[in-house]
């Protein structure tokens, strides 16, 4: 199994008792055309290096997830999405070509039109169709590194959906932080942003902080969660309104807090990210929030976002039209798994799915029902590659 920068939360890039190929050395640019914005690079290159090199020259990755410390190969294998799904789709939508190395020695060059079936299997294919070695990507033109953003507090889910629907036409980036500890309707902060042509804006603050050690117990617990979320909501509500902000803190708020995962203590955390279709989305999200509030488990990081209607390219891509909820939960063993089983039931009934890139525990039946093209995908698997996830969810 190929291993990039190890930022997947679950077991998609792990291979206990097996071999991992680190792609760390595959971190070279190959070519960039300043006229067309077409970038060719090796798969181990970090999104950060691309952004830092090319943003000053007026080009940016069209789709980027909440951290830039991931590799191009990982972004393709998990077909990651960002805050602008309703405009730009997912990462795979901007890949023009990729080179796949198979363990039988075959080299497959594929893209949206060339060997499109191989391409569809590999985008979102969790690294199971071969090793992604190189890619060609279409970047987008930008005028500068800044975005005009707006924060809007909301007090219930109805208000969230109204804001989300009302923002899609005029705003490229939309996302919301949701306070999963507020009983009842789910309050939060809706954030939206657009790239601006302005040549001036706040400069990037230098300096990173590191969580210095793993505390003996999770700092995210019943005693801290409620006050934190309460305080965070009210602080953000104070900052409501418009502001100009550099793309790095806007897209990658956690990248300057190194080793942040340590706050969850030695047992770590799970992320639970699901997507459910829009018609049942509101009820399903409400039901999930109620289950979470009832369980007493919870997280600092609750993210709620609507996806646009664009169908992803990959057979196993996560995104689908609907609404996605992502939450981090400290690992409390059995207690946490009982909650997940309840959330699974809601996702299953709603006809939704769970994000494989962030999963370490979903039951096989939910995987199979969530990803109806699984049997097509299996024909493209590289027999020489398996991961903890493939053995858990596909049996080999």
């Amino acid at each position, binding site marked *: 199994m190929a291993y990039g920068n190890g930022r997947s939360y679950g077991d998609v890039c792990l291979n206990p008792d097996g071999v991992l190929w680190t792609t*760390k*050395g595959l971190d*070279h*640019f*190959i*070519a*960039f055309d*300043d006229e067309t914005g077409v970038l060719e690079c090796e798969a181990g290159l970090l999104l950060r290096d691309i952004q830092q*090199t090319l943003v000053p020259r007026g080009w940016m990755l069209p789709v980027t997830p909440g951290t830039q410390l991931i590799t191009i190969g990982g972004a393709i294998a998990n077909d990651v999405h960002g805050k602008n799904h309703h405009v730009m789709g997912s990462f795979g939508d901007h890949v023009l070509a990729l080179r796949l190395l198979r363990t039988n020695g075959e080299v497959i060059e594929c893209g949206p039109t060339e060997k499109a079936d191989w391409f569809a299997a590999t985008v979102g294919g969790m690294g199971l169709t071969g090793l992604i070695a190189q890619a060609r990507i279409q970047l987008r033109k930008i005028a500068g590194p800044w975005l005009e953003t707006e924060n809007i507090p909301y007090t219930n889910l109805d208000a969230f959906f109204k804001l989300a629907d009302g923002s899609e036409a005029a705003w490229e980036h939309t996302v919301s932080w949701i306070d999963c500890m507020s009983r009842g309707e789910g309050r939060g902060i809706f954030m939206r942003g657009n790239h601006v042509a302005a040549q001036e804006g706040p400069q990037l603050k230098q300096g990173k902080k590191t969580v210095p050690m793993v505390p003996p117990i999770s700092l995210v617990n019943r005693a801290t969660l409620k006050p934190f979320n309460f305080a965070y909501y009210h602080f953000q509500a104070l900052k409501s309104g418009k502001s100009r902000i550099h793309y790095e803190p806007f897209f990658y708020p956690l990248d300057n807090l190194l080793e942040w995962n340590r706050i969850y203590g030695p047992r770590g955390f799970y992320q639970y990210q699901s997507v459910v279709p829009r018609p049942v989305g509101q009820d399903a999200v409400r039901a999930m929030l109620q289950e979470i509030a009832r369980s007493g488990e919870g997280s600092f990081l609750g993210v709620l976002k609507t996806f646009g209607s664009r169908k992803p390219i990959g057979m196993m891509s996560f995104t689908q039209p609907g609404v996605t909820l992502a939450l981090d939960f400290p690992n409390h063993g059995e207690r946490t798994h009982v909650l997940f089983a309840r959330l699974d039931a809601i996702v299953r009934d709603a006809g939704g799915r769970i994000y494989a890139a962030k999963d370490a525990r979903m039951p096989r039946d939910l995987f199979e029902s969530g990803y109806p093209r699984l049997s097509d995908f299996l024909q493209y698997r590289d027999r020489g590659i398996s991961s903890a996830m493939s053995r858990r969810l596909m049996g080999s």
Partner: protein
Amino acid sequence: MLKKIVIVGATSAMAEHCARLWVQESPKVLVLAGRDQTKTERVAQDLRVRSPQSEITVQVLNFLDPDCIHEWVEGVTADGVPDIVLIAHGSLPDQMDCQQELGLCEEVLTVNGVSPALFAEAFANPMQRANRGTLAIIGSVAGDRGRKSNYVYGAAKGLVTRYAQGLQHRLARTNVKVVLIKPGPTDTPMTERLKADGVNFAEVSDVAKTIVVGVARGTPLIYTPRKWILIMMIVRHLPRFIFNRMDI
């Protein structure tokens, strides 16, 4: 005028990361010398994307042939000596293999010890004549004291250490600076085999940062990461009867 930097052994991960930092500061004239055209070209192409304003050329030569080295250095310095020369090539063999096979043993001693010394010597003359420039050589903490686990490599790096010392002495009254870099175990392709043992290696990008800063200042001796100053001071001074009992 762009600063001119010559890197010998440009495919070395440390050298490559130094080059990335150098072109990130400002465009440079970079001469990348390697033993393998394709591999060196891959490094050059990456740097060209990172810094389109830089002038980057690739030159392939035989690193073991004194005449080749001499002639090449003459060519590179013909239109003026470089501001910085970084000599970075090396290879890390398995000690056991070296003990079994004298041919390999010789190759390791030559590639890691004799060849860097020849390059340093060849550059020292024009740089001394021009009375300017910085000559940086990558040695290793392994050169500080011979140990059973890698003394063939260590001996070659020890040669580099003495050589650099001598050059520093010779050029002390000139404006030419000689910088000797001694990295500790670093996460590079060269140490791939050792990583399976779970050793915690330094990040090559961090090591490169230290090198770039040290070269700019002309620091005569750089241990990187810095903790290796202390570790190697202890290792160098351990009495033999204790040292010989250690499995290192």
